[in-house]
């Protein structure tokens, strides 16, 4: 069989003959070819080395000391930077000029693009920023902006300051947004800790953003009445508490489908519209059962004020089965 065949080394081939030759064994033509080949190799090495060295010099000059930039590079003064933002972006040229604070007559080569980008990103309304030189005299700034989903009031420097919050939990000033649009956003009832000069990013805001987006889309009439969103029990119980202008408190489950919960809320709100009440608490977080607690209106007695005990604030309670036959 083939496995038992002897292994015979193959015979020597002419290719094993060494083809190395010393220059002194070459003819004049051969030595000239060797010389020109060496010259060519040296030339290519020098050119590549020179290019690399030049590139290194330029990058080093730009990184370490912009003043070492040649005069010729500084001669062309730059035009006003161009801003390119997202389609629904609100930031404008004036904001860009204020933010970048470029000196007049500065040339393109004198700019430190990294620092400019950092300065743009310090404005937390800016999600991404890209700064590009377009020679000879244009600077192009491409940014994407954050969109606000809610407002937040914070204590700052002894006073109060209103910020807006994006869906990724970043709080920012909300420069350039329409005041009416900002006024229509609900408030977030949550504390915001400081981290140096900036505020910390709010975590788990994605659920809230989804609720607000669903409400805006499927129940805008409800969304318009929403005043405050409390996130105290979001982490522990996955519950979002929404307080409306009509003194109704709705508790949403962050685990459930918001569309279903909004539909139930809409139905219950319609049912309650005919019943006068001081305050109502609708718990949508329990699934099919929706407990609704109603505090009836108390007739005003001008002579004396009656203070009710805290435990009796919602004396009337009934199950959703009484109100909802089908959600």
């Amino acid at each position, binding site marked *: *069989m*083939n496995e038992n*065949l002897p292994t*015979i*080394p*193959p*015979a*020597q*081939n*002419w290719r*094993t*003959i060494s*083809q*190395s*030759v010393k220059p002194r*064994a*070459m*003819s004049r*033509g*051969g*030595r000239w*070819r*060797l010389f020109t*080949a060496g010259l060519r190799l040296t030339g290519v090495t020098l050119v590549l080395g020179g290019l690399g060295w030049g590139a290194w010099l330029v990058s080093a000059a730009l990184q370490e000391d912009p003043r070492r930039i040649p005069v010729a590079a500084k001669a062309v003064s730059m035009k006003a930077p161009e801003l390119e933002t997202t389609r629904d972006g609100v930031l404008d040229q004036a904001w860009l000029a204020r933010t970048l604070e470029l000196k007049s007559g500065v040339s393109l080569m004198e700019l430190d693009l990294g620092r400019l980008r950092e300065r743009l990103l310090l404005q937390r309304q800016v999600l991404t920023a890209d700064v590009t030189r377009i020679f000879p005299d244009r600077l192009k700034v491409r940014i994407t902006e954050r969109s606000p989903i809610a407002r937040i009031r914070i204590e700052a420097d002894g006073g109060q300051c209103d910020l807006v919050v994006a869906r990724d939990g970043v709080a920012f000033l909300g420069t350039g947004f329409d005041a009416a649009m900002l006024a229509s956003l609900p408030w977030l009832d949550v504390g915001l800790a400081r981290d140096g000069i900036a505020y910390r990013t709010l975590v788990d805001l994605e659920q809230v953003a989804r609720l607000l987006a669903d409400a805006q889309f499927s129940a805008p009439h409800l969304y318009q009445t929403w005043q405050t969103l409390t996130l105290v029990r979001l982490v522990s119980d996955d519950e979002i508490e929404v307080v409306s202008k009509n003194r109704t408190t709705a508790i949403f489950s962050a685990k459930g489908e918001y569309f279903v919960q909004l539909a139930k809320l809409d139905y219950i709100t319609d049912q309650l519209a005919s019943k006068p009440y001081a305050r109502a608490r609708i718990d949508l977080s329990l699934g099919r059962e929706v407990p609704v607690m109603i505090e009836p209106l108390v007739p005003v007695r001008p002579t004396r004020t009656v203070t009710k005990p805290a435990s009796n604030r919602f004396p009337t309670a009934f199950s959703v089965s009484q109100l909802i036959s089908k959600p």
Partner: protein
Amino acid sequence: MSSRSSFIGAVEIGTSKISVLVGECSGRELAIIGRGECASRGVIKGVVADNRAASDATHSALEMAERDAGERIDLVFLAQSGGHLEGFYNEASVNVKASDNMIESGDVRTVCDLAKSKELPTGRMVVHNIRRPFRVDGRLVPGSPENLVGQRLEVGYWTVHGQEQRLADHINVIRGFNLEVRELVLSSLAAGHMVTSPEERQHGVLVLDIGAGTTDFVLYRDGGPHTTGVVPVGGTHLTNDLGIGLRLQEGQAEKLKLRFGRASVQTKDRAQKVWLDGNFAIGDRQFSQQAIEQITAARTWELLEVVKKKLGGAFSPETCASGVVLTGGTAKLSGIVEVAAKVFGVPAHLGEAPTWVSENLRDPGYHTALGLLYYGVSVQAEKSAANRRHSGFFNGMKRLFTHA
């Protein structure tokens, strides 16, 4: 000029002249862009005898070819001839390994390795391993036997080998010009590839490349080379015979051979004379035309007989249906075709380059260099195609497990 082109020099260091052709090769396309030619020095019977003289002549031809092409040669395909080249046939057979008797690549590799592995005497080196068609259970298989079913796989190789020192001398001539020898090709194979068609090679044809110092021959059968050989006798021997027989200097004898030499005796009149120079000046001499013809015919006949004897049983008129093709400088000798037909008993004709070869390269003296270029390029293309086939990821993994 394409940036992917390579410039190949085909060099034939012959006994009487050195020919160089420059080809621009891009992929499988080849264009001949330059040529150089120089009278040979330091080469006797196809072998480098004086390295310095041979190098000077070869380098002159190379420089001339580079100037003509306007490009630098990157690598060289070198023709190889000389009496030191010999050949032998060795065959091997293996039992097919697979239980279903289907031949696998491993079987093919094993049988080929065995057939090629015959040990050579010290100082000898393989120039070519020419494979003959495979046989599966005695049945001839023109192509690859892989995936055919059979019990026994056989193959034979015609191995051409030469003296290491002689081969190195040839290579060193080229290395002296700081050029790499990429392929060493037997002169007869190069010339045979150029002057025969695939159909002729399939039916069987004998190619005789009669040069100045050597006569190279190759016998094709079943589409491929079957037997090759070199006889260290060529046109120079005819010149020498004339010089000795008629008491002439080498140059004068060469002149007489070219003008009045014949491969057969046609002149009946013994008194018919020819003049050496024909200018009737002092020193011009008369010679018998019949004597010249007798000398050249005797040597030509002898040369062809030697070739026939060397071929032995490999040659027979039945297996050489396409006859004999003559090429090389001495093939221009008047009447040699008829003599060849008589000696071998088959039709003979002068080899011609294919019609696409330009007019200035159609001389038989360029057939070897032309063949070198085309044979070399096709061999390189086959090798690179085979490398591509075997260098895939799957093949790499397969090899890894095979050798594990």
